[in-house]
């Protein structure tokens, strides 16, 4: 043990770093600032107690989240990371409102488009009908003219 470096936690606490030190795996000697931050906000004993109740597999994530929270608290002593939560909740509200508005506009556009399709269909049908009646009237006129010519021997 004498030849091994104490972990960052034991070094800061000026104590002997035992082989089964619960903090050693997560606060290596080459990252002293990490433990300084966590110790300042939570306290070494609280961190150790929190890690003790956790399974080994989850301890690394727990330490990461504690470091994140401690960092946030030091940067913002009043709100810590709750400011981030408030901000994200506000973003969500804004996005939901905009999404609803945009979706309503899409529906409106779809309805107008469908209405326009109907109009075009009606106009297309009307156009075809009017062309047929013109042809018929022209044919009747030509036929009548021919008949008139025959009567008058033209």
């Amino acid at each position, binding site marked *: 043990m004498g030849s091994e470096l104490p972990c960052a936690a034991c070094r800061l606490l000026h104590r002997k770093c035992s082989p089964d030190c619960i903090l050693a795996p997560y606060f290596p000697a080459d990252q002293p600032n990490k433990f300084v931050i966590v110790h300042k906000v939570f306290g070494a004993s609280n961190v150790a107690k929190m890690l003790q109740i956790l399974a080994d597999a989850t301890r690394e994530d727990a330490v990461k989240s504690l470091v994140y929270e401690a960092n946030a608290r030091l940067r913002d002593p009043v*709100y810590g990371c709750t400011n981030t939560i408030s901000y994200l909740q506000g973003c*969500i509200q804004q996005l939901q409102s905009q999404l609803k508005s945009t979706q309503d506009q899409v529906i409106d556009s779809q309805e107008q488009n469908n209405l326009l399709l109907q109009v075009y269909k009606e106009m297309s049908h009307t156009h075809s009908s009017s062309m047929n009646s013109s042809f018929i009237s022209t044919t009747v006129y030509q036929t009548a003219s021919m008949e008139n010519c025959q009567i008058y021997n033209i």
Partner: protein
Amino acid sequence: MASSNSATSVASNSGSPCAACKFLRRKCLPGCIFAPYFPPEEPQKFANVHKIFGASNVTKLLNELLPHQREDAVNSLAYEAEARVKDPVYGCVGAISVLQRQVQRLQKELDQANAELLRYACGEISPTMTGLPVVGPVNLGSYGGGVGRASSIVGHLYQTQAQAQAQGQVQGASIAMPMAFNGSGAWRGGGSNSSANSNASGDQKEGGDSSM
């Protein structure tokens, strides 16, 4: 020093010890820093804060703040402590992850909806797709009859889409400039958004614009 049953129950103003002093089994003196923020009827609040942060750390933190900041600080500490008690691995960082994913999902949905709206505005989705003859506003005049109705519908459609497009641009711009919470319940524009991208490994993040 005189000690009596009544002395142990002396508190700052209310006559009963605050939740902190009750938890710590000590005399609640008139100048108790915890008393304004840990009323006796909310014992769990201090219990959580004490478990996660410790009384001495909370005292140091509150002493570094101005009096008008302390209530918000205590409430945020209580929130974090409760989240950590409920989720010992991730605490309120878990809630942040969930919210970030929700923001990403909503942003994606909004982008898709805006894209669809833009397709209508650009005429990608139009009657011409059905193979029917194209009747533009200019040609409508030769048909008489229901022309007025058709041209007014076309005009309204283009107007609505233009309005939607303009609104979409404004809304898109507001998402690109996130707001910051200034701590008093009001939102203002122009705040930083680095917190949404921070990780849990100790990287720095912007926590908002509240200052000591």
